[in-house]
């Protein structure tokens, strides 16, 4: 089969699915939708696998062009796809995890009246996400970039009767757009500098640029603003917790596994530009680290099962950015991959719990679900261990790779990051304990209806659990006799930047083991601390308004960041809008315009009294005029 053809088929299937489901979402029977929705993504996955096995065939000509999208002057934007190990890795994650989540949705959304619409949106999302990862130049990536933002908007506000959800959706879209403006300006600057927007040409030329070139720094910073918006980093992270208003599969697919990692992918893709801009790298590192800690600290006190996971996602994304900032591109991509597995699993598990409890999301009203939802419990446990970073599950390896790189960079940063990861362990096990341990704290009615989810939902959970458990094998470090296979796979993509990164003194095996040991010990300590804190003593769980120490109060209220934004951005803009409209527009500009008109009217009103109606007077004036003209004629 023609390889180019295959590549273009990958995004076509979800698009077709979207078109069919979108045109006839009310007339297509549910059964057909249940096959069509996940089916198109499965087809994409199969073709992605095919591409994966043939990726070496693309090494010679990685860019596949379909047609010229925009061409004017020297601006040439072909509608082209780039097939290299990095994009293929993302393809597999998007279509693979995407497929599992689609299957899960068949069960989860079964009773929803918007069933067809849901799958239409999900398919559209997969299409745009595929464009994002496949694009061979920045504008094509930007199509996907904005497109996934649109789908995120549509899916967060999926239950659009509720205006709180709609507001959450709007907030997500607008915050993403702020980032998108940065991305857009970044693109313009790239075009200004390199006269091209294609990855291959830009990177080719960038290689010749000096380290720390101010233009490159500006480009990378602008692109990073885009990443901050899309990947929910400080200061544009507040949309992600609100985005939990959408159906849970949406949170799993868009707000955990794929879309929010687009920023990481973009920076990994532009790795050459970033290694040339050490200033930007520091900014990314600081942002990522701050976000990781900040979000983790908020997660500790959240009581909404999905909100905890949302803050955890923000925090984990922070780790990926930290990894990128020290040049550990493979590490970041590795963590992105394992995170896609275990975070999707966590969200789907949470969805299963919510499903069982009839929509309950507050973990204070859960508990003791271990025996009632065994499959959910076991898979959730695996994911929790994975994200906490306990070996031998996947999260340990991926997070450790980032931590080790960080240690080589600076031991202080390493300590901060470890503090973050022990917070992660603490809040994740708190979530696990409160949900599945102790006794059930919900209503009797919920108690009666407790049930394990149907097989169509648990099967994806089990598959993801296997992936989350063994995903670490993808890039097993050498000390565990691993082959660093992911590093090897991705090496061609990062080859050029690897040369530019200052060579690190290889760490001795003992140091590496020591660091791992320290991390492991503190993490396990946190697991037990959480156990004693939330299970052993069966403490009273405080309701929302309870009096707490002020620092805790601050964290419960998410540091009042939403309120702060409301005061420093939303309110002033609305005020400005009022002032512009009522003062500048009506009182000033329009009054000026009307004033000119009024002046003409006034002049006319005054001068008209010369028309006395007296014929004699008219004739007198006329003759006077004639005489005057004659005189002037003589004078001049």
């Amino acid at each position: 089969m023609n390889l180019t053809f295959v590549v273009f088929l990958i995004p076509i299937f979800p698009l077709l699915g979207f078109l069919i489901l979108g045109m006839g979402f009310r007339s297509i029977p549910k059964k057909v939708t249940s096959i069509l929705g996940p089916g198109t993504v499965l087809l994409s996955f199969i073709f992605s696998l095919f591409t994966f096995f043939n990726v070496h065939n693309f090494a010679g000509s990685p860019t596949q062009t379909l047609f010229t999208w925009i061409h004017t002057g020297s601006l040439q934007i072909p509608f082209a796809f780039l097939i290299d190990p990095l994009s293929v890795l993302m393809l597999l994650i998007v279509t693979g995890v995407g497929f599992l989540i689609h299957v899960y949705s068949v069960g989860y959304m079964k009773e929803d009246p918007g069933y067809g619409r849901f799958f239409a949106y999900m398919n559209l999302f997969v299409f745009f996400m595929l464009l994002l990862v496949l694009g061979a130049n920045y504008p094509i990536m930007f199509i996907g970039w904005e497109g996934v933002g649109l789908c995120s908007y549509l899916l967060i506000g999926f239950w659009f009767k509720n205006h709180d959800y709609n507001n959450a959706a709007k907030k997500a879209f607008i915050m993403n757009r702020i980032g998108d403006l940065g991305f857009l300006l970044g693109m313009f600057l790239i075009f200004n500098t390199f006269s091209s927007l294609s990855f291959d040409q830009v990177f080719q030329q960038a290689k010749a640029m000096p380290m720390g070139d101010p233009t490159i720094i500006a480009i990378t910073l602008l692109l990073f603003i885009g990443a901050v918006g899309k990947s929910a980093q400080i200061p544009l992270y507040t949309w992600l917790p609100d985005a939990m208003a959408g159906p849970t599969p949406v949170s799993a697919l868009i707000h955990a596994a794929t879309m929010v990692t687009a920023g990481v992918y973009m920076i990994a893709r532009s790795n050459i530009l970033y290694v040339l801009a050490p200033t930007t790298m520091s900014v990314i590192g600081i942002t990522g680290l701050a976000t990781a800690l900040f979000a983790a600290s908020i997660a500790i006190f959240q009581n909404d099962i999905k909100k905890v996971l949302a803050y955890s996602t923000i925090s984990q994304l922070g780790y990926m950015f930290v990894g990128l900032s020290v040049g550990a591109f493979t590490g970041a991509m590795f963590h992105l991959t394992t995170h896609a597995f275990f975070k999707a699993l966590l969200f789907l598990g949470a969805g299963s719990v919510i499903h069982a409890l009839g929509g309950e999301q507050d973990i204070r009203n859960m508990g003791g679900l271990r025996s009632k939802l065994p499959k959910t419990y076991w898979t959730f446990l695996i994911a929790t261990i994975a994200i906490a970073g306990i070996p031998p599950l996947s999260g340990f390896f991926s997070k450790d790779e980032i931590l080790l790189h960080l240690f080589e960079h600076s031991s202080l940063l390493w300590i901060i990051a470890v503090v973050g990861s022990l917070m992660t362990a603490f809040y994740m096990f708190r979530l696990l304990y409160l949900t599945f341990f102790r006794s059930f704290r919900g209503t009797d009615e919920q108690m009666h209806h407790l049930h394990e989810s149907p097989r169509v939902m648990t099967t994806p959970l089990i598959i993801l659990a296997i992936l989350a458990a063994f995903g670490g094998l993808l890039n097993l470090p050498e000390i565990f006799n691993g082959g660093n296979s992911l590093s090897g796979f991705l090496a061609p993509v990062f080859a050029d930047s690897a040369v530019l990164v200052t060579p690190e003194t290889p760490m001795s095996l003992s140091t590496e083991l020591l660091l791992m040991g320290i991390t492991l010990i503190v993490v396990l300590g946190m697991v037990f601390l959480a156990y004693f804190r939330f299970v052993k003593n069966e403490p009273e769980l405080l309701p929302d308004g309870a009096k707490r120490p002020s620092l805790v109060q601050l964290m419960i209220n998410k540091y009042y960041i939403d309120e702060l934004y409301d005061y420093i951005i939303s309110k002033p803009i609305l005020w400005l809008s009022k002032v512009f409209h009522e003062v500048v527009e009506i009182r000033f500009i329009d009054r000026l315009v009307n004033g000119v008109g009024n002046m003409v009217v006034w002049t006319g009103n005054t001068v008209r009294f010369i028309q006395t109606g007296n014929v004699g007077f008219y004739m007198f004036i006329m003759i006077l005029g004639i005489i005057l003209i004659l005189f002037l004629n003589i004078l001049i």
Partner: protein
Amino acid sequence: MDIPTNIPIQYYLVFCSVLFSIGVIGVLIKRNALVILMSIELMINSINLLLAAFSAYNNDPAGQIFVFFIMVVAAAEVAIGLAIVVLIYRTTHSIDINVLNKLKW
């Protein structure tokens, strides 16, 4: 044609100017619409006379052609003017122009 060169052109000029001025003064000071029309006629005719005189003096028939034009136009003007005056008299029972100040502002 016999050219009346025995009367110098200055005489015509002075005579016509006086005639014209009488017309102007009549228009300005009279209040009767009919008299004003007559004064206008006087002004027109003074011009006609001057045109005819210059035409004869310069041996150029164009001036006399103009005179005929003006006479035709004047006749038409008087016809309409008188008709208006008659109508005004019928409605207001006066042809005093100071009464006719309804059309103002």
